[in-house]
């Protein structure tokens, strides 16, 4: 279905359900969809599973959602940072679950989900605690570990510009997980600095084609 250009972020996130798995783009603050996350905080959905590289920075964005006690489980690669005190407190007091996934497996598991691939074998994690209990096999003389696809009910992505059809371009390293998450969720919501007329974006530069995008909001 064609993407909808929403009037505001509250409209865009209105139907996110309790218990949903939410893919949250961004690498630290770069590419974090803070307008959409603020709207999700107002919207009230709870018991969420959040998939994001980090577990919130400072007190805004994802950290604010965590602070509201709305996230049951984090799936991420790098939760602990100098400014991750909100997550740290929740984790140490047993108020949040953590599934630790390597950064590349996090991206590739979502890529697999978005590409209709039922998992993949990968030599990363072999011999480490992150491979425990996982199926492995010898491929070309090297042990590979089976990783499963990771899909979301919703993706919240921060980007640079979208056109009227929902084609999206990003800016610099704020691209990070956005293009992969856009393929891997049932409902993909993108916030941008600017919506431009359809035809104004050079087709050669579009990173996320409109087929993946359901809703667009201006931040």
């Amino acid at each position, binding site marked *: 279905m064609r993407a909808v250009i929403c009037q505001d972020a509250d409209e865009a996130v209105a139907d996110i359900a309790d218990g949903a798995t939410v893919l949250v783009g961004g690498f630290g603050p770069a590419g974090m969809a803070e307008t959409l996350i603020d709207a999700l905080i107002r919207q009230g959905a709870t018991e969420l599973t959040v998939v994001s590289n980090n577990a919130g920075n400072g007190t805004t964005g994802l950290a604010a959602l965590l602070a509201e006690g709305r996230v049951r489980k984090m799936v991420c690669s790098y*939760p602990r940072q100098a400014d991750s005190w909100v997550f740290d407190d929740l984790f140490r007091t047993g108020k949040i679950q953590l599934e630790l996934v390597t*950064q590349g497996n996090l*991206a590739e598991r979502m890529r697999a989900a978005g590409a209709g691939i039922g998992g993949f074998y990968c030599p990363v994690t*072999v011999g480490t605690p992150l491979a425990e209990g996982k199926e492995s096999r010898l491929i070309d003389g090297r042990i590979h570990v089976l990783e499963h696809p990771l899909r979301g009910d919703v993706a919240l992505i921060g980007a640079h510009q979208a056109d009227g059809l929902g084609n999206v371009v990003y800016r*610099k390293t*704020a691209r990070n997980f956005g*293009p992969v998450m856009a393929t891997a969720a049932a409902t993909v919501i993108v916030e941008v600095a600017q919506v431009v007329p359809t035809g104004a974006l050079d087709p050669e530069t579009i990173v996320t084609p409109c087929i993946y995008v359901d809703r667009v909001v201006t931040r």
Partner: protein
Amino acid sequence: MTAPRTRAQLARAVARDIPPGSFVNLGIGQPTSVANYLPPDSGIVLHTENGMLNMGPEAIGDQVDRDLTNAGKAPVTELPGSSYFHHADSFAMMRGGHLDVAVLGAFQVSHAGDIANWHTGESDAIPAVGGAMELAVGAKQVFVMMSLFTRDGDQKLVPSCTYPLTGLGCVSRIYTELATFDLTRGRVRVVDTFGITREAIIERLGLPVDA
């Protein structure tokens, strides 16, 4: 040299050993400082796993841009010929064997080249792995930069790692303040020493005598 290497001397030594024209990922922490010593005409291209090739120096003042950071989330700059890509592509570059050198920090490295650098294993520690495992497994060569002993005096080049592993048999060279080591098929060779004799370091580390 008659004294242990300073951190700057260590970074300079690593920089000198990276072949011109290499594609290189410098891990967060101490390895990041290697960038300050790469010769401008070396043609070395820095990769940052959050999605950029030909990353420039740290951004200062007006150059700071929230959308342009390195893997440590510090603001950086572009160099001519830089490019951006998403995370799945960035880690495909690593896993797919396209990076020539990764420089990593470590808690421990074993004689066989196993590396432990992501988790102390302490029960109250919050684990964070990031891209360390992909770098360890994917780069053609993995260099480690670390102090040779912990603050408590425990050695970090060990017969086998006691911390949770990051990758198996992947480290080929270790740069420390006291010595540089080559690791080949389970054997350790002392390349050079600083402020200590070769014999003394072999004895202190309990290395095989032909090291």
